[in-house]
């Protein structure tokens, strides 16, 4: 009985007919997470890393010749967010027929597996937007004012490094509505170069960058957000302090040739990582119609 789910000759485009010079890439989401969180290496001899959060003290004024006892204002307490490495995996089988006569080889399977793992890691980050305690829900579609309210919340929380542009991570529909708002806001604004930043130089760059909203942050476009109540849960986050993660240097692939189970090569890839929310105040969820 044949083994199920093996990549066989029939899965590939073989040269019974001539093949085009260019193959269309798979229509899957792009990955953007790594630029918007604090990334560190995996720890050694443990799978847990604590991302430290410094506490602070409170000063007071005392009258002349008055004693000041040690009190809660002087007690320094540090806390931490915890990342526990987990492994994202993909296992594929490539039949010997496919390897001999087909157009999908082991290198291609490995590359696709790595891409799948990176999408999984990306979605893990996006899913954490719904954990943020500050939420701006659009009445219907995303507006620049909604994004600015998110920025206000982050600044109100006294998030450090306010000189760093915030990352605004939106879905295509929200980006469309932001662009539409800018275009429809009137000829004066449309001809104002400061307002045109969100259009960038090209529609969407490889890292998801669409452009910048002057004085607010950089807009990135992706898909795969958590949804609820007819809304996508997108976010505006501080790229340094909102989320943290531990990441292996690269995925690892194993090859194993099979015989008695069916003639195929098993390609197994794994990647250790974890992502956690580091500072709740450094991000705000932006909910708008899916």
């Amino acid at each position, binding site marked *: 009985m044949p083994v199920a789910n093996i990549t066989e000759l029939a899965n590939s485009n073989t040269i019974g007919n001539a093949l085009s010079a260019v193959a269309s890439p798979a229509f899957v989401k792009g990955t953007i997470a790594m630029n918007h969180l604090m990334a560190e290496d995996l720890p050694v001899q443990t799978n847990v890393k604590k991302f430290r959060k410094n506490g602070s003290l409170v000063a007071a004024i005392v009258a002349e010749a008055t004693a000041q006892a040690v009190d809660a204002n002087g007690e320094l307490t540090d806390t931490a*967010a*915890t990342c*526990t490495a*987990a492994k*994202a995996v993909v296992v594929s089988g490539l039949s010997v027929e496919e390897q001999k006569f087909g157009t999908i080889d082991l290198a291609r399977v490995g590359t696709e597996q790595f891409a799948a793992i990176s999408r999984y890691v990306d979605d*893990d980050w996006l*899913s954490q937007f*719904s*954990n*943020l*305690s*500050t*939420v*701006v*829900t659009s*009445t*219907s579609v995303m507006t620049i*004012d*909604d994004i600015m*309210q*998110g920025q*206000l*919340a982050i600044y109100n929380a006294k998030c450090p490094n306010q000189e760093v542009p915030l990352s605004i991570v939106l879905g295509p529909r929200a980006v469309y509505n932001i662009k539409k708002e800018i275009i429809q806001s009137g000829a004066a604004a449309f001809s104002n170069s400061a307002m045109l930043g969100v259009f960038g130089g090209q529609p969407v760059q490889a890292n998801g960058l669409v452009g910048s909203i002057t004085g607010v942050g950089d807009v990135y476009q992706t898909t795969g957000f*958590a949804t*609820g*109540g*007819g809304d996508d849960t997108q976010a505006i986050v501080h790229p340094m302090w909102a989320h943290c993660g531990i990441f292996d240097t690269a995925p690892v692939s194993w090859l194993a040739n099979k015989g008695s189970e069916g003639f195929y090569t098993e390609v197994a890839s794994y990647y250790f990582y974890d992502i*956690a*929310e580091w500072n*709740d105040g450094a991000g*705000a*969820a932006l909910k708008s*119609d899916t």
Partner: protein
Amino acid sequence: MTNPKEEIRLQKEPFSTMAKVIEKETIDQLRGWKPPGFAYILFELPCMYGIGAGEFRRGFSLCTMNVENRPEQQERFYYLTRKGARPLHYGNFPRHDDPDPRRAQKAKMHTGPDLVNPWDDMARLVKSQMARDGGQVAIKEANTGLQAKLDEARAEIENLKKKKVTNV
């Protein structure tokens, strides 16, 4: 500005959760809510809502934690509960006797030599947290009831005072 899609959603019945929900905002968010296809834990998360012009108000939102491929996420669970999140429901946890053979296999693959399904461990954690929260919800509910009675009594006193003034 009203959103027709939102109006239709608000007509629907709220999703029935394992834990009792008393906040109207959460009940409204559960209207038309569809459980995800993966193993999940649904939380009610206290949050601040931006309501325009730089104003914020306290409220509640829903958030789901994905435990489909990682049952051992107690740390994340505790992190959310420390933020005040309350588990309302969980579902789609793979079981050893799952009718879907792939999910049954997944549960068996994650099971260690102690033969304990890690999703069962997570379910126990969620249930114990729900039980702990249940007491708080009952107190909150009782407080709401007493507050309503107090408001009613105050309104009655005001009415009686007005009547007295009219009689004089």
